[in-house]
């Protein structure tokens, strides 16, 4: 209950504001609902679009393939791929952290990482539909151009200030042969529990390790779970 309330705290706040307004001034409350009407209608024309597009991008443009393309390729090609990777990905900026960490380990440059993080944050293909609807297609297009240019310059500037050695690359200290679930990234999708039910379980919408010790063996499924976790929340040390 508390958790639900916290999650929907904002909605609760708006509902209470409406109730208050109804008591003080009924006409204004009704007018407010009417005024919301237009925006609700607009939202309904883009929400299914954003929903479908997110799913389609997820099905047909797999992140991993693009990550492989990136490697340590920098320069113009690298920045295009980075912007593309960021733009097709769903979720807030912190969902990009583990992905970028993996890329850094694979040798991606700081420039590319900054470009991915930034475009992950501001440029989202399904979101462009939303922006065009509520502001205007022209607004959306111009902002997109400026932001893209800005992101490239930003990547360049950060890569001048920060060197590779400044970034902690080493694995988190996991004991040998153990599993660690990084709670802040786990979205509770349940994939790990499905792949490796002997190791993972979902509790309160988060994965927990029922068995922290890796057994090893040829048909050990823990590796696959680590690989398939969409947010890369699982770390294993062998």
């Amino acid at each position, binding site marked *: 209950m508390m958790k639900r309330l916290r999650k929907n705290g904002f909605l609760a706040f708006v509902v209470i504001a409406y109730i208050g307004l109804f008591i003080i001034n009924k006409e204004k409350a009704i007018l407010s609902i009417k005024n*919301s009407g237009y*925006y609700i209608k607009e939202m309904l024309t883009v929400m299914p679009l954003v929903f479908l597009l997110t799913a*389609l991008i997820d*099905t047909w443009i797999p992140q991993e393939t693009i990550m492989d393309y990136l490697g340590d390729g920098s320069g113009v090609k690298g920045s295009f791929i980075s912007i593309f990777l960021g733009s097709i990905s769903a979720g*807030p900026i*912190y969902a990009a952290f583990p992905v*970028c960490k993996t890329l850094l380990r694979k040798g991606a440059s700081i420039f590319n990482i900054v470009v991915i993080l930034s475009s992950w944050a501001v440029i989202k293909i399904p979101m462009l539909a939303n922006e065009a609807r509520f502001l205007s297609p022209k607004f959306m297009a111009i902002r997109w151009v400026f932001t893209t240019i800005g992101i490239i310059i930003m990547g360049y500037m950060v890569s001048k200030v920060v060197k590779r050695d400044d970034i902690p690359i080493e694995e988190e200290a996991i004991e040998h042969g153990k599993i660690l679930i990084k709670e802040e990234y786990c979205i509770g999708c349940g994939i790990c529990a499905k792949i490796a039910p002997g190791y993972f379980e979902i509790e309160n919408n988060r994965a927990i390790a029922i068995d922290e010790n890796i057994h090893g063996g040829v048909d050990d499924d823990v590796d696959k779970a680590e690989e398939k976790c969409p947010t890369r929340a699982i770390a294993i040390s062998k």
Partner: protein
Amino acid sequence: MDIFTKGLWIITVSWFIISMKRDKNRTLKSMKKSKNMMGNMLGQIIGILFLIGLILTLIPPEMIKEYLGSSNTLIATIVSALIGTITLIPAFVAFPLIGSIVDMGASIVPSVAFLTTLTMVGIVTFNLESREFGRRFAIARNGISFVFAILIALAMGVIL
């Protein structure tokens, strides 16, 4: 519907049909994932849409014009950018809100600054970022992004 939205609808629906034909299971699975993501945002989306109604009714447009209009753009822009760094709403929900305020007469410059810092600069995620990429990286990226948010906003003000 404007041409852009219409076009995108056509592309998306055709893509969806092809996708269902090629691999029904995978498509449905991704849709479920996407549904979960949207479901998590639903409360916020409904909240924002009704909040817009309240704002439109209760806040006089003159007030929006005075504080967010074009008279003192720079200060309004910096303040909006700052608010963006501490606000925790997905961009998806921010667009209708910004749209309504702009319709009421707010200048677009502070709005753009807010939109950019909202997603790109995060006080709340700063700790996580510096743990993953080091303090130096987090400070540099967030700092430079903040400055650029304002530059992008000002540039857009010149063009639009």
